[in-house]
């Protein structure tokens, strides 16, 4: 197992906040909109440095998406900020018509995604958002793995003309991607090369997969580990190249089993390279209150769940 350097412990939402502030210093077309969660989204630096380009919309997410779409018509690059639940499910129709169908250059930036939002419970822990967003034509879906990658992705998506869904979260997690690494939409990152099994993960589950791969390597199992930070467009080549070596796949995500990264990968496998595939994801269930790591364990998306899935998928080869 290749050594993975850890640069510190940070939350991905702070990567978004830093990225947005840095981006806005270079790009005058960037505007920020927030639905009463400026602090939670870490948008305060952007707001303080660009008061004329920051728009507080209050608790009115549908209106926020519409305003962002109108700003995009006029040539700006709007970044909307609220929790993932209110960024997607609450405003699906607004995104569908005014952003995706109309191909508007709106960046929907969603924090507190998944179970790791923690104590607020299931009303706020959306586990369906990747599915909803990847079903929309014209939508790019990005789930960066750590603080540095979220920052880089926040900056990079401004150069992509079109709707983007950028998903990140609340918990403090290890930072392991290089702060100087450029972010390339749709280009998966291979974190470790192996021959026994492919693990494809996104978001917080990338770190959990690194831990799992380290455990597995002690038992002589070598993991081809892919950080699939872009769910759409999906890097099919990276998947197929890896499966060519390993002939089996585990996908890992902080999302419902239905419709997420696992299903996106399964579509590629079923059409182009059928092989055993196990999901590490939440199985058709809402979450609940609790500490982030307790929830990951209870809902089967922790390090040991990945290890178990790997053992199972290898046995099916």
């Amino acid at each position, binding site marked *: 197992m290749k050594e993975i350097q850890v640069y510190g412990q940070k939350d991905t939402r702070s990567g978004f906040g830093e990225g947005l502030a840095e981006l806005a210093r270079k790009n005058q077309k960037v*505007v920020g909109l927030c639905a009463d969660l400026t602090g939670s989204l870490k948008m305060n630096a952007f707001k303080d440095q660009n008061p*004329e*380009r920051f728009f507080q919309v209050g608790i009115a997410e549908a209106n926020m998406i519409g305003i962002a779409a109108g700003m995009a018509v*006029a040539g*700006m690059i709007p970044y909307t900020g609220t929790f993932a639940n209110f960024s997607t499910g609450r405003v699906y129709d607004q995104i569908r018509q005014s952003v995706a169908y*109309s191909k508007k250059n709106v960046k929907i930036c969603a924090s507190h995604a998944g179970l790791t939002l923690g104590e607020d419970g299931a009303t706020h822990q959306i586990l369906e958002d990747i599915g909803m967003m990847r079903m929309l034509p014209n939508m790019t879906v990005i789930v960066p793995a750590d603080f540095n990658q979220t920052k880089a992705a926040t900056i990079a998506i401004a150069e992509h003309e079109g709707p983007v869904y950028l998903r990140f979260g609340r918990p403090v997690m290890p930072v392991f991607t290089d702060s100087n690494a450029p972010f390339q939409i749709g280009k998966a990152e291979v974190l470790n090369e192996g021959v026994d099994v492919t693990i494809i993960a996104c978001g917080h589950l990338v770190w959990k997969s690194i831990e799992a791969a380290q455990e597995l390597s002690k038992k002589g199992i070598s993991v081809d580990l892919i950080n699939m930070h872009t769910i759409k467009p999906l890097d099919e080549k990276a998947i197929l190249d890896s499966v060519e070596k390993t002939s089996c796949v585990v996908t890992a995500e902080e999302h419902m089993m239905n419709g997420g990264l696992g299903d996106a990968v399964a579509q590629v496998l079923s059409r182009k390279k059928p092989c055993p595939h196990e999901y590490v994801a939440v199985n058709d269930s809402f979450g609940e209150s609790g500490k982030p790591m307790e929830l990951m364990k209870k809902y089967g998306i922790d390090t040991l769940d990945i290890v178990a899935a790997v053992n199972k998928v290898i046995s099916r080869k």
Partner: protein
Amino acid sequence: MNNLELIKIASQIRRDIVRMVSNVSSGHPGGSLGCADFLTLLYFDLMKHNPKSFEMTGSEEDIFYLSNGHISPVWYSVLARAGYFPINELSSFRKISSRLQGHPSTDKGLPGIRMASGSLGQGLSVGIGNAQVKKLNGDKQLVYTLHGDGELQEGQIWEAAMYAAFHKVDNLIATIDFNGRQIDGDVDDVMSLGDLKLKWQAFGWEVLVMNGHDYENMKDTLSQAKELTGNGKPIVILMKTEMGMGVDFMMGTHKWHGVAPNPEQLQSALSQLEETLGDF
């Protein structure tokens, strides 16, 4: 443009509307006919715009958003007659591979359209966003939006109304097609809007009222609305119209909201509408 010329254009636009929907036995003639005079005035007299070289950003132009997208026939006809695209393209309305989708869309690149609409309640937010960028850029031109009265039952409209007043979006003139009818019946029977004037005033807007079929009254009211811009408040015009205006059997009822006339009904309608600019 003088009123007589505008009336002539509107007559042709009404002919276009009934012919378009009859042609495909689908579409929404009622509200389209009701808004024909207003849209004629906007595009042929009031707005500064560039039909011959449409640009999505519309900087230094007045911008119009149709929020109640189901009255696409009137918008398509006005856009074509104003020069945005060939008039004979109106015959493709609602047909396979047409740029003239059932509800307005940017998807196939029809000039004049900046945003899809059809799912109701979204256009005011869009107009506000565009208007705020105009202010940010020092662009003095205005943003106009049109909404159905039934559409005001959507909650997003009121989110947008609250926002526009709070953020002093005073370069926006929203108009409500106040015909009192929606698909299921009279608005007052389906879901009454209460005192609409007081509602908008309570939300912090300047409220004007006009007759959407009286050009002199519309010119005066819109001129007053333009004078009110830049004073820190958004402006809304409650425009009294008659659904189906111009075709006797379509007036006085909600039943022609989304029903196309059959060939006999079409002939009856056309006999009431003078062909002034040549049919498509």
